[in-house]
């Protein structure tokens, strides 16, 4: 009996330090990569000019178009998670109309030609995660004879990436 106790004590003494050391032969660390929501849009030119100055006799003045600008878009949104809206900062002069058409980036849909007002209007919908540039913007500016002669007026068009609701 004494001998067994001695052996057991010996076993305990020999294994105890081994167990303690083995418990710390590993160490861990956490690596976290936080990806923020990214929604960036820009246009290729800050300003453009359009003038209605011609007409066919018997018809309203001829509308003018401008396709000189493009936009660039980067978003890491979910599928169909975003849309693009357009809005004017101030109304165009009475009896004139400014319309906009945005081509769609890959995976999204253009809403076609939309009249710009001081209320936001959807111009592109169903936007997926994408990074594209050189996407066409088209403006059309028209006036009726009732507008008369209108002096140059600046308006600001704001394109916004918004959540699809």
């Amino acid at each position, binding site marked *: 009996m004494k001998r067994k106790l001695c052996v057991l004590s010996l076993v305990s003494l020999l294994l105890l330090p081994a167990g303690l050391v083995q418990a710390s032969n590993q*160490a861990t660390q956490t*690596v976290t990569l936080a990806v*923020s929501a*990214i929604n960036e849009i820009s246009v290729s030119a800050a300003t453009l000019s359009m003038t209605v100055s011609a007409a066919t006799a018997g018809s309203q003045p001829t509308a003018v178009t401008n396709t000189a600008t493009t936009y660039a*878009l980067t978003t890491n949104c979910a599928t169909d998670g975003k849309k693009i809206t357009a809005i004017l900062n101030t109304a165009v002069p009475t009896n004139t109309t400014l319309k906009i058409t945005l081509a769609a980036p890959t995976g999204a849909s253009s809403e076609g030609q939309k009249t710009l007002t001081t209320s936001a209007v959807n111009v592109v919908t169903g936007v997926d995660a994408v990074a594209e540039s050189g996407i066409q913007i088209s403006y059309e500016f028209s006036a009726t004879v009732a507008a008369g002669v209108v002096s140059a007026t600046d308006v600001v068009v704001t394109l916004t990436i918004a959540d699809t609701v």
Partner: protein
Amino acid sequence: MIKKIFINLPVIALLFLCGRMNAHSPSITATGSVSMTITSADLQSGAGSDLTSFYESNPASVTVAVSGAASLADEWLINVHKTDSTWHNNFHLYIRRASGEDLPTGHVHEPTGTTYQEVTGSDQYFFDGSGNITGVQMQFKVSGVSVQIPPANYQTTITYTVVDI
């Protein structure tokens, strides 16, 4: 009596050897954690461009120490693997040793572990050395980042294992 000693001797010797082998096994500790945040500031060239594809951590944020080595000549090696919790399949995680340690108590064998190697779910050799060392800096690199990765916090756990050799 002699017979009993012969019977017990191999058992006692084995237990003694186990104790001897493990009593001076080195242990490892890791200090700090890695956190990288990706925002729109990481776009390659603003709207229309994709995210920079790889990111490196600050090497000063994570250090590893080995202690409990029997002597300056007691050699060991470190293996590394990762366990994903919310990691994205597109991500590839790499690790390298960003500092060398040549202390009176031990040193890292140069140039082991100084070039990036991918960390996978299986234990892989990382670097080796001898004796006791502290403050060895670890640096991480993550590749495979793009706007196709949804916004979220992605996390994986790195496990270092020190093996007495």
